[in-house]
């Protein structure tokens, strides 16, 4: 068992030849053995073929300068390729050739320099091992004493330690002065917006027609055949001048038609569907990806980002994955012309959970 508090009893230096540089710090629980092998010293240097055979040396030299000349060829080729393979027509093939040939030229230019320089270093430059002596990272005792002395003098001359009122008030001021900068960053978000209010409502309201995403063509109930799934936006979304994506990020809806007997509706939501047609928020309740994959046979919705699965026949409750809450349901009905309309906005915030949501 190691004894870590024995004041360096075992601190025998294994190799006395380096004793003058020896780190006398505490070795902790390291075992310092008196019976260890001694370092046999550097392995004798081995000469390379280029050191021994003038022919090989000549060959290596030729290789290096040939590579450097090749690099020049590569660079010139890259410039030529810029002109020889322009992107002129609306032709993706042009882009491919332009990228490829400029790239090949640059690759040659770069790799030839690289391999040439490394080969020069490895085969031709003198490769004797050099040895640097290390010193402890800490400054020498004299240096440290001098540094301490400087701080002492500075302390005395400034009165930093003595005039505590000055010092402490300075520390206080230094702590407080960056705070305005933090406050300025409040401007990153608009001053007049209430996040909770905004997150709680979408642009769906009573009578808004359900329309196809992205065309905005309103959907008739009769268009929705059994087993089909529609990506839906509010009909007036495309008319928005501003904030279209923000509204769409909340209002996107999936519309599906199931056989009414497959649909297990909650009693309080019995009139939210129309003839087996149900509408659910498309924004995942986990972190907000669009739940875009509908499996027709099982009536499951799958989020492609983190694989949460929602069961449409069971009011979109989560059956697998990290999400917790079911997808919010949009109550729908049919207007006098046969178009699907919203009965109201969603009755709960859509999308990912947030702190103030409850």
């Amino acid at each position, binding site marked *: 068992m190691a004894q870590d508090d024995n004041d360096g009893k075992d601190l025998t230096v294994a190799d006395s030849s380096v004793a003058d540089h020896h780190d006398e710090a505490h070795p902790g*629980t390291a075992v310092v053995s008196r019976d260890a092998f001694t370092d046999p010293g550097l392995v004798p240097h081995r000469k390379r073929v280029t050191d021994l055979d003038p022919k090989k040396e000549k060959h290596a030299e030729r290789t290096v300068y040939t590579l450097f000349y090749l690099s020049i060829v590569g660079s010139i080729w890259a410039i030529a390729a810029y002109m020889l393979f322009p992107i002129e027509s609306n032709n993706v093939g042009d882009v491919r050739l332009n990228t490829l040939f400029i790239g090949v030229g640059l690759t040659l230019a770069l790799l030839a320099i690289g391999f040439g320089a490394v080969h020069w270093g490895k085969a031709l430059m003198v490769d004797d091992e050099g040895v640097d002596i290390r010193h*402890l990272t800490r400054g020498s005792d004299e240096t440290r004493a001098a540094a301490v002395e400087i701080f002492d003098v500075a302390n005395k001359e400034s009165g930093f330690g003595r005039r505590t009122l000055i010092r402490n008030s300075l520390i206080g001021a230094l702590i407080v002065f960056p705070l305005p900068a933090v406050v300025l960053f409040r401007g990153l978000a608009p001053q007049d917006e209430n996040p909770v209010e905004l997150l709680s409502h979408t642009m769906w309201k009573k009578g808004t027609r359900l329309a196809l995403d992205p065309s905005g063509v309103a959907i008739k109930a009769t268009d929705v055949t059994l087993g089909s799934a529609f990506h839906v936006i509010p009909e007036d979304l495309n008319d928005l001048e501003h904030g279209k994506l923000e509204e769409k990020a909340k209002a996107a809806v999936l519309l599906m038609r199931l056989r009414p007997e497959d649909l297990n509706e909650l009693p309080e939501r019995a009139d939210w569907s129309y003839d087996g047609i149900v509408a659910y928020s498309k924004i995942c309740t986990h972190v907000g990806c669009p739940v875009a994959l509908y499996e027709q046979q099982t009536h499951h919705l799958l989020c492609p980002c983190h694989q949460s699965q929602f069961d449409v026949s069971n009011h979109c409750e989560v059956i697998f994955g990290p999400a917790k809450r079911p997808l919010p349901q949009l109550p729908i009905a049919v207007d006098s012309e046969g178009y699907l309309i919203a009965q109201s906005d969603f009755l709960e915030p859509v999308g990912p959970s947030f702190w103030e949501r409850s």
Partner: protein
Amino acid sequence: MSTATTPEAPPTTSTAVEKKGGFTAAAANYIDERTSVSTMVKELGRKIFPDHWSFLLGEVALYSFVVILISGSFLTFFFQAAMTPVIYDGSYVPLKGIEMSTAMASTLDISFDIRGGLLMRQVHHWAALLFVASIGLHMMRIFFTGAFRKPRELNWVIGFVLFILAMAEGFTGYSLPDDLLSGNGLRIIDGMVKGIPIVGTWISFLLFGGEFPGEVIVGRLYTLHILLLPAIIVALIALHLLFLVVHKHTQYPGPGRTNMNAVGQPVLPVYAAKAGGFFFIVFGIIMLIASFFTINPIWNYGPYDPSPVSAGTQPDWYIGFADGALRLIPPGLEFVWLDRTWSFNILIPLAALGLFIVLAMIYPFIEAWVTGDKREHHVLDRPRNVPTRTAIGAAGVTFYAGLWAAASSDIIATHFKLTMEGVIHSLQFVVIVGPFIAYFVTKRVCLALQKKDRELVLHGFETGRIVKLPGGEFIEVHEPLTDYERWRLVSYTDYEPLMIRPNSQGRITVGQRLRAGFSRWFFEDRISPVTKTELEAAHGHHDTHHELDEKSAH
């Protein structure tokens, strides 16, 4: 100096200063009188750098960062970081007439209307992927060889911060083109941020300048991506390399390599030639990949729209572990309590990743506390000689790899025709139990390798030569190791578990008990290096073998 190779090359700096006349000498003198550069050349010019292939990993990281800076600067001249909607009217026909942000449209222009633009985009993206990958491998090299020990603990922390900043650079850059995938990435960040208690909703609004996605996020990320983060990264890299110079590079154990020297090649000329050449090799290989292989084809994804998303979406590889953590969390971990929403399905992954990162970052300090070793260490450990650390590292790598694989859970499921649930449950097992398995297997493998080393030192190499002794006994001749070969196998630091002893007040503190517990965990299973006496004893035991060994050796 080699004279055979470049007779016409300018002479080295030292002779240039002495020599009268000549442009080089005049220029050197001019600069030195104004900068004292000769002092620096004298100090650093022949500085020794030990050599090993694994030391190149950090170089790859540095060089790919330079490539990122070069290609990124080119891109900034063409990219427009605005989210103002425009109707695309460039060369890529399938997207003509479609409304998209200026950022997306200018990225398409870079790809389809500017010669060499797509090449530079791909150089930038591939170099970024390589940057993070090489940092990761470099960190593993540092960890498994114990290069983080005193005096390099702080440089480990700096390197770790660089790793995190590199990922931040990657993510901000990934988000700039404002294509469908990058928008979805931001959506996920938004969802995660909103899950943070108390401040989450507000952070999301401050970040996006209002509701997601808003029209400011690309511009803000651009400032981070090309100004703030690169500036910090450059400063930290400078500090990282400064410490490298101050500490001198570590070296692998071997004959003549002690804790008090550095054995290798001098900066001028060999190291400069090899390292400088290696920069061009790294750049060239990135260029080769970028010429032939598409990366991030945003024209296939289209502009960001909150409604569609394609199946099989993947983040860039280095974000995978975070995305995987989100996927692996078991269902149902979100509650309403005190009229507030507690999203543990987001908080637990965040906390787990945070803990993982913090533990990795402070590991050098933990190990230093356990060993109590206050000496400097410049000779690296062979991973097998520190079985517990190596096993901890393997456990960490397994944990990370499990999370990383989880980011491709859907691809794994469709590709190998497995169920989604089966893949997720298997990966949950890998992430929770896998590290323990990896720990025990690695530790046993290390101990076995140490035993093999011991065996080699004590009995030499098996030669495969069977000899019949006069008495009729058959033995296999073993060839003893040379002094050099042996030194590599026996020169490692060996630690013993700490014995609990009362301190000067006669008390045994909780801290000491804890440290003793850790110390037992680290060093209970240990194989000591062979000593001289042991080797002699081994030879004494097999006296006849020994004689034969001697004969066959001579």
